[in-house]
């Protein structure tokens, strides 16, 4: 399982390294979203700094949808998905590998978006470990659910429109938890508020990773 996971993650990241879709399209989209939020909320940096945690996570969520679309479309061309099924690769390994590749791309994106939030909105981080922990756990949850739903919708002709509709309500807890942890970790927040939300994220991640490891095979065969 782990060997296959590393193999698949390496493959997806190599494809990203070659095509730069996430870096040259998804990340600029995220930054642009930050700018649009700023336009919508007016030039008052106090309001923006207050909204920074939520805006950060909304931008991450939208970018997740794009990253998952890309992760699915990589396997759609030339019947690559059938190729993977035929190779007898362990479905659990395939799931973890694809999730890991998405997670790595999201982490890079989050670093840039966090920098953007700090620079553009004047957000001040007081407890860095809370921010880092929320990003790490949130990213795992987003990648785990996204890869699952990506596989489910991979055979659909209407995937582009249906995937966000199905995925975004499911990841609502990630948005809520991520935002609350960020608020707790910002200047003027109460860091102790973050712990129960971190626990929620851990449960979320564990539940969906377990589901993916067990059910990715059957989902893949549904096509």
């Amino acid at each position: 399982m782990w060997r296959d996971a590393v193999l698949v993650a390496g493959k997806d990241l190599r494809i990203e390294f070659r095509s730069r879709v996430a870096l040259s399209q998804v990340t600029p989209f995220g930054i642009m979203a930050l700018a649009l939020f700023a336009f919508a909320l007016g030039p008052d940096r106090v309001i923006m700094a207050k909204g920074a945690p939520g805006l950060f996570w909304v931008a991450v969520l939208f970018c997740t949808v794009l990253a998952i679309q890309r992760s699915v479309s990589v396997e759609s061309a030339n019947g690559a998905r059938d190729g993977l099924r035929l190779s007898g690769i362990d479905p659990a390994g395939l799931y973890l590998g694809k999730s890991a590749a998405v997670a790595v791309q999201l982490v890079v994106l989050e670093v840039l978006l966090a920098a953007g939030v700090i620079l553009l909105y004047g957000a001040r981080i007081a407890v860095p470990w809370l921010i880092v922990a929320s990003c790490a756990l949130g990213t795992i949850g987003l990648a785990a659910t996204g890869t699952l739903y990506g596989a489910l919708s991979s055979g659909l002709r209407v995937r582009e429109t249906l995937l966000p509709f199905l995925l975004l309500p499911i990841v609502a807890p990630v948005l809520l938890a991520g935002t609350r942890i960020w608020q707790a970790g910002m200047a003027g927040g109460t860091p102790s508020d973050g712990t129960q939300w971190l626990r929620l994220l851990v449960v979320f991640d564990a539940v969906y990773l377990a589901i993916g490891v067990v059910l990715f095979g059957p989902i893949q065969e549904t096509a």
Partner: protein
Amino acid sequence: MAIASPSPSAVSLRDVVALSGRFPLLAGVDLDVAVGETVLIDGPNGAGKTSLLRVCAGLVPLASGRLSVLGMDPGRQRTAVRRRVGLLSHASHLYDDLTVIENVRFAVRAAGGDVARIDPACERWGLVGRLATTQASKLSSGQRRRVALAVLTARWPEVWLLDEPHAGLDASARQLLDAVIAEAAASQVTILIASHELGTAEDTATRAVTVTGGRVTADRVLDRQTPTTSGSVTHVA
């Protein structure tokens, strides 16, 4: 080499029905292929040749009937069966953003194949030098087919399911393919070749099965000529 009855069967279908929606791809196929046998599957377009191979690879679920591949049920022991079966299909299964050699390496590793066999296989199929580091998106369909064949050659599974393997290949690649098939047949690999073009692989085939309307309508043993009469077999490297 392939003696019909006493050897265990590599692929066995009993009254297999497979559907796509409500359309029967296979409408009750009975077929036994012994280990080490090379079977040619012919029949008109849309007869179910491709479907038969996809069913054997476990890609298409059965609506009814029984299927066993290497003594296993592809519906249940998916991973185990697929590791030991190779399907050469119309789709190249390539990642356009990766180079040829990267594609081959990934495909062989994903299938749990022997990494040491990758380079010789690529060399054999002429995937060396600049071509090896070319992006897959820039390949012609014949070159894509060569890459897929290189993966198959490197993996060297126990059952080969070849769907129109000669399509898109130039003359020298066809000869090479025939040689590889002959070599595989000699090493007790079970081979099913779906093709309308009788003749190219007939030298190695021991049996020909005709599929029409999703059923096996004819099954005949081919009298093998002495191998020296055909030029392709002498090519074995």
